């Protein structure tokens, strides 16, 4: 029987378009300091730190030489996952569950020193896919289109996801984009890669997020509002777009199934109080509903049409505004987890679900879009 692990504190910066007064890892530092202060801990009480993100995004190979320092890793046992920070959360969970560590800092950042589109091209192999223009966005667009065409999902339905999430951002003091948008705004925004219009795609945001995890024996000492990791799983998908069913997010379905199993969840739509889903595009939020078992295949659109996932709906999704309001490249998933934790602690001011007890957080870790993404699902429970 594994040790229980809880998240005992959260820190995040305000997220913005640029933060040029700081080097990228200062975002990790600020978020970590906030998390430590919030828990009344100093870095001496932390056993291990896990940094996250992609070196090429940071513009520095072995970027963790800096980020580990920024999150309290000096002379500690640290690691770095070359993934979205939600996978750092997963790794920290494993480390604490193993019994070898009692406390962990997990942090991530978004920064903008390079264009994601330009960078993503070099993730694709130079033999078959890079020469034909494969990139993060084009692969997501191909997937979105496969889904939309197979199930007849309209642009309007996808646009409603954007309207919903941007409304959420407007209520989130940390969000990057704080102005709501209308359906007309979305449908009037220029084409990027069919079927994606500009507003179907997340922005690029700068900021930092940090979480502190602790083993159950330590939790009571640290906080009266622990958030327990009740279930957690992650899964990767195949690389070649031509070798898989693009109309579904199979790795997300696999991760969700395992996470639900761990958490004893059989009817997620009924049992969850809220979800924070990392949507790389508006269409992907609809696909995520299906992969998460909230809707049948092809029917994700209904949840948004019927207001099920709206604020005040049966299962609000992305009250924080989601990635469509704040997109930290390398930490959007971790940010979803942070938001879910704030909800369960009753600290999601302006966007709070009353009495939230059980939440789902999801992260989409990929620089290569729909090629080999890793999806991570965390089920969190108020302590």
């Amino acid at each position, binding site marked *: 029987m594994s040790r229980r692990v809880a998240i005992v504190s959260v820190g995040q910066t305000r997220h913005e378009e640029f933060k040029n007064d700081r080097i990228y890892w200062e975002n990790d530092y600020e978020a970590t300091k906030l998390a430590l202060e919030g828990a009344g801990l100093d870095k001496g009480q932390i056993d291990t730190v896990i940094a996250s993100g992609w070196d090429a995004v940071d513009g520095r190979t072995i970027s963790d030489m800096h980020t580990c320092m920024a999150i309290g890793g*000096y002379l500690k046992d640290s690691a770095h996952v070359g993934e979205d920070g939600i996978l750092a959360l997963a790794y920290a969970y494993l480390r604490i569950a193993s019994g070898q560590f009692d406390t962990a800092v997990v942090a991530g950042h978004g920064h903008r020193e390079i264009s994601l589109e330009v960078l993503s091209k070099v993730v694709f192999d130079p033999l078959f896919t890079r020469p034909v223009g494969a990139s993060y966005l084009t692969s997501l667009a191909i997937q979105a289109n496969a889904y939309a065409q197979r199930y007849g999902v309209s642009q309007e339905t996808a646009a409603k996801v954007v309207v919903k999430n941007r409304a959420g951002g407007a209520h989130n003091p940390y969000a990057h984009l704080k102005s709501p948008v209308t359906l007309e705004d979305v449908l009037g925004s220029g084409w990027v890669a069919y079927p994606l219009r500009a507003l179907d795609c997340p922005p690029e945001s700068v900021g930092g997020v940090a979480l502190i995890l602790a083993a159950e024996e330590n939790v009571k000492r640290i906080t009266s509002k622990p958030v327990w990791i009740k279930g957690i799983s992650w899964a990767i998908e195949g690389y070649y777009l031509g070798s898989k069913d693009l109309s579904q997010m199979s790795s997300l379905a696999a991760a969700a199934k395992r996470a639900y199993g761990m958490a004893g969840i059989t009817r997620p739509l009924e049992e969850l109080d809220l979800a924070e889903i990392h949507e790389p595009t508006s269409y992907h939020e609809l696909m995520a509903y299906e992969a998460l078992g909230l809707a049948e295949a092809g029917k994700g659109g209904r949840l948004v049409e019927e207001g099920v996932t709206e604020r005040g709906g049966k299962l609000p999704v992305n009250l924080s505004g989601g990635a469509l309001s704040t997109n930290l490249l390398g930490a959007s998933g971790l940010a979803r987890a942070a938001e879910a934790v704030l909800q369960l602690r009753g600290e999601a001011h302006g966007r709070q679900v009353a009495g939230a007890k059980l939440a789902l957080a999801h992260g989409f870790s990929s620089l290569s879009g729909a090629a080999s993404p890793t999806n991570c699902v965390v089920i969190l429970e108020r302590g």
Partner: protein
Amino acid sequence: MTTQEEEILIMPGAWNLPFRHTAGRFASRFFRELRDSQKIYGVRCPQCRRVLLPPRPMCERCFASIDEWVEVGHQGTLEAYTILYVPFLGLPPPPLAMVVVKLDGADTCLQHILGGVDLSDPDKSKEVVKIGMRVEAVWREPRRGEILDIQYFKPI
């Protein structure tokens, strides 16, 4: 000799990844001071009181934010070095001495290069470059607000 069926093709590739790196508050001030006042600054950690060079926003040992700037000397002590004898892409041609210098008043050292010495004979270089020797910054004119405004360090 490979036949046509066995021929292995080698495909060329290159990454052209343009970046814009912000220097942030700390490095920006450090470079501005080099450029505008020909001064070298370190920063002091409020807890351990060490003067850190190059300047940075936090002390990783104390996990403390830093906001105290301390001017350090243009002279210092050579703590470590090596001499390159083969060409390295993007660097001045060999022989090139790379050094680690503790400037007077700083608690940590700057990485830089040594100039104004004859390093052509590896055996004789031991006489010319010594750990513990005193060195001084030689400035580039005009100064541009980059680390190479200190062109090199020379023995004194």
